């Protein structure tokens, strides 16, 4: 199978790679006790709050939980379209 994959360029991830990425995702949520539903709520509230000050690109917004060792990190990457004009 490996040989065929190599020859025809089909690089399907191994079950080991799938296991690792699934584990990493589930653990980062387990550790901070944030379900995907709560993450969505958090994201919505972020959008509301930040939109009060600047106009943001909601489609391009990325909110992720990442881990570095046993330290979890919430990262938000929010593209700003333009500063909202002051009234």
């Amino acid at each position, binding site marked *: 199978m490996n040989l065929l994959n*190599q020859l025809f360029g089909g690089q399907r991830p191994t079950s080991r790679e799938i296991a690792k990425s*699934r*584990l990493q995702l589930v653990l980062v949520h*387990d550790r901070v006790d944030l379900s995907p539903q709560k993450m969505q709520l958090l994201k919505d509230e972020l959008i509301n709050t930040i939109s009060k000050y600047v106009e943001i690109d909601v489609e391009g917004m990325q909110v992720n939980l990442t881990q570095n060792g046993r330290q979890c990190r919430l990262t938000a990457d929010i593209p700003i379209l333009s500063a909202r004009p002051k009234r």
Partner: protein
Amino acid sequence: MGATVITITSGKGGVGKTTATANLSAALAMKGKKVVAIDADIGLRNLDVVMGLENRIVYDLVNVVEGSCRLRQALIKDKRIENLYMIPAAQSRDKSAIRPQDMIDVCDQLRPEFDFILIDSPAGIEQGFRNAIAPADRICIITTPEVSAVRDADRVVGLIEAEGKGPASLILNRLRPRMIQRGDMLDTADVLDVLAIDLLGIVPEDDAIIVSTNRGIPVVMENTSRAAQAFCNIAARLLGEDVPLMELEEPSPSWLSKITKLVSRH
């Protein structure tokens, strides 16, 4: 000074806590240390059968805690190895028969007489687990390279840290080199990457474990299987020796994988 108390726990059941407790206790005793293994799995005792001491039980841990026997009466001496003892769990009781403070008291009584006290924790994260970790000076978490076992291990790592009992160290059990090689099993680096704790040792999957459990003779006592070697290495590390990590066997490459290697070079 006195004994070092080591608790072996996992979160998930069936990953090798009891086998590891039996073998590490025996291996430490074979290295000349005075060791007592305590079965903290009240109601589901098994350390006795894995160690082959089930016919010698008169009193158990709950009897000791309730004061219906003296601690010395519950200590079963292993006749095969000098300096190896075991305290069985009660079989007809449940986890609530014992509190964390009871485990601390029992261990404090044992400490002056022993070099090591190994505690076989029950699965789960409830009272039985809390009892088992209460007296621990260090905690070993054992897991297999499977998603469910690693996830549960991570939960336990978090609980141990929250209790201020960390850092725990990891025993990765039942590795299958061939499955790892063909990309169908998490390897040591993957599990360490995910759990981010120190590695105490790895143990390959080995038929000898089932045979030894059938007979009631821990593998380290009688043969030179891979698993026996692995547990001896871990015992040596517990004694502070610097032992290199076991090499998992490299099966001879098939013609197909040889060609694959050639192709992938270009």
